[in-house]
């Protein structure tokens, strides 16, 4: 049997807006992926540690507080340090358009803002998953 895509949905930092993270987690599960949800208040270390423990293929970061330029990049930097560039990183939340290219450069391959259909995220992951 084909191995299911394993996804970690993570909430870095202090942001408590978890509606989007939970909706996306369910949608990915319903699309046949294995989903692990970290819960709130994760540091970059905690996210990467969980990603290793759970052997995930994808990390989905969700942040609506505006701290994405710091906290998303903390995670991608740490992944690089650990040699885990084969983990696909995507992000969602309130992310101004001008920040998206910078995040992509830092290793967040897909950025999904308000109004995104869950299908779009599912398809993106299926197409871009590296392992």
């Amino acid at each position, binding site marked *: 049997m084909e191995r299911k895509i394993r996804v970690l*949905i993570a909430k870095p*930092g*202090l*942001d*408590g*807006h*978890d*509606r989007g*993270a*939970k*909706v996306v*987690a*369910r*949608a990915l599960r319903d699309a046949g992926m294995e*989903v692990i*949800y*970290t*819960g*709130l*208040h994760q*540091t970059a270390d905690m996210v990467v540690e969980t990603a290793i423990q759970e052997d995930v293929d994808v990390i989905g970061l969700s942040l609506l*507080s*505006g*701290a994405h*330029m*710091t*906290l998303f990049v*903390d995670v991608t930097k740490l992944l690089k340090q650990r040699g885990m560039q084969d983990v696909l990183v995507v992000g969602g939340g*309130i992310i*101004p*358009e*001008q920040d998206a290219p910078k995040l992509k450069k830092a290793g967040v391959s897909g950025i999904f*803002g*308000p*109004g995104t*259909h*869950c*299908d779009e995220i599912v398809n993106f992951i299926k197409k871009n998953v590296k392992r």
Partner: protein
Amino acid sequence: MFDEKELEKIKQHKDKWLKDIYSNHVKKHPERKKKFENLSWNEIKNIYTPDDIAHLDYIKDIGFPGEYPFLRGIHPTKYRGRLWTFRQFSGFGSAEETNKRYKYLLDHGETGLSVAFDYPTLYGYDTDHKMSRGEFGKCGVAISSLEDMEILFSGIPIDKVTTSMTINGPAAIVWAFYIANAENRKIDRRIIGGTIQNDILKEYIAQKSFIFPPEPSMRLIVDTFEFGYKEVPKWNTISISGYHIREAGSTAVQELAFTVGDGVEYVKWAMKRGLKIDDFAPRLSFFFNAHNDFFEEIAKYRAARRIWAKELKRLGAKKSRSLLMRFHTQTAGCSLTAQQPEINISRVTIQALAAVLGGTQSLHTNSMDEALALPSEKAVRIALRTQQIIAHESGVTDTVDPLGGSYYIEWLTDKMEEETYQYWDKVDKLGGVLPAIEKGFYQREIANAAYKYQKEIEEKKQIVVGVNDYQMDEPVEIPILQMDEKGEERQINRLKKLRKERNNQKVEKNLSALRKAAMGDENLMPYILDCVHSYATLGETCQVLRDVFGEYKEPAIY
């Protein structure tokens, strides 16, 4: 409510109309949908008539404004007397920047202030704490000490203007900053007015900026109730909030049921402590969302007033003032679109109108750019102007509860009340509000509703203009608020200087007195006030309570 013979006549006529006119018409011109539902997935009929509300007793169930059960409003004159407070939730960056924004808003006709704090402040961390990384001033203003609070309100007449503060976990400490700042300015704490949100139950349920476990959190809240009515009598010591429950994805019915249920829970805890209901109940206030479904929102506010009055009476309140549900409303942030952001002005107008027709005491209208970033000056000014247009141009303020007596509105109000009690029965069966939180009941109900709603958008069962219909492919041309990049550095330097220059012996003494008191069962407010007066920081004061009370960790379910 109607003469029986008359009612029978109407019923017969209605049956005939349904058969002869309506059905024939629908055969030729079918309705757009098989089933019409509101945002709580309640089926809505084609028409409402007297027999839908015949079971109601006008005097007993609907009545007059300013009279039990206050369905039609808590004041006899409503907006004919005084308009609601125009209160825009606002805060970003440093205290200096936000102070400027407050002055700008007051200059443009805002009549009350409302503070948005950044995440570190909401969690009781100073700006230089490691968990504060990346969050300085992002979601609100950073306030780490009394000194920051002094800057935030410098030049603002806090003896005249009232201030609402969205702060929960560390509410007692931040409130103490406000009181101490007034006192340092020689303003008597007995005359300052405002609100602290201080509603921890909905933090566990939805907003998630909790710090301590439920029991010590509830103790702190009852401490503020008691200190409030004795020492700061014009202050609303809580704003029991449905707003965040709704933003997290609940239906209107869930928002109503969970919020008013939380209110009853606070009353019970305060009474258990031995406080007299008529002493503290008049200072309890509420906060609701104004979402898209116009009539459902109006019915929600009306039902909330009636349920609250009934329940407070049941709990033994004697004073009429204790029975009054006073509430603030904010339009629904989650309904705003990042696509074609200008059209959010129309959404906000409809939502704000529902809040006004529902009789809100205070209102925040969202800015069109809030699905993109914090609001720019122009966007927030347009939002404020929207309230002013409703207040002064629309004419809806000329009479009290203009929709009262509408067959549809009264039917829906009653229905939402009925469903609220059904939810309360479910919560009772789980052992009450705290056990229901611990079992994840509310969280699951909300997550289910949020997911169902999202799926309906993707299936186009719900149309969101600009998102799944009427889309345009054009760049967003909204100027985004840029913050002062030096703000964080300035704040950290100020904190360092403060920690060096204050009387640290006094700080230590006050913090250990607080620690000792927290281990006992005294009211903590006087101890907290001593700490902040000596310029102990938010983080230091909160850490003492973290040490004694511990921290709450929620189960990660989705």
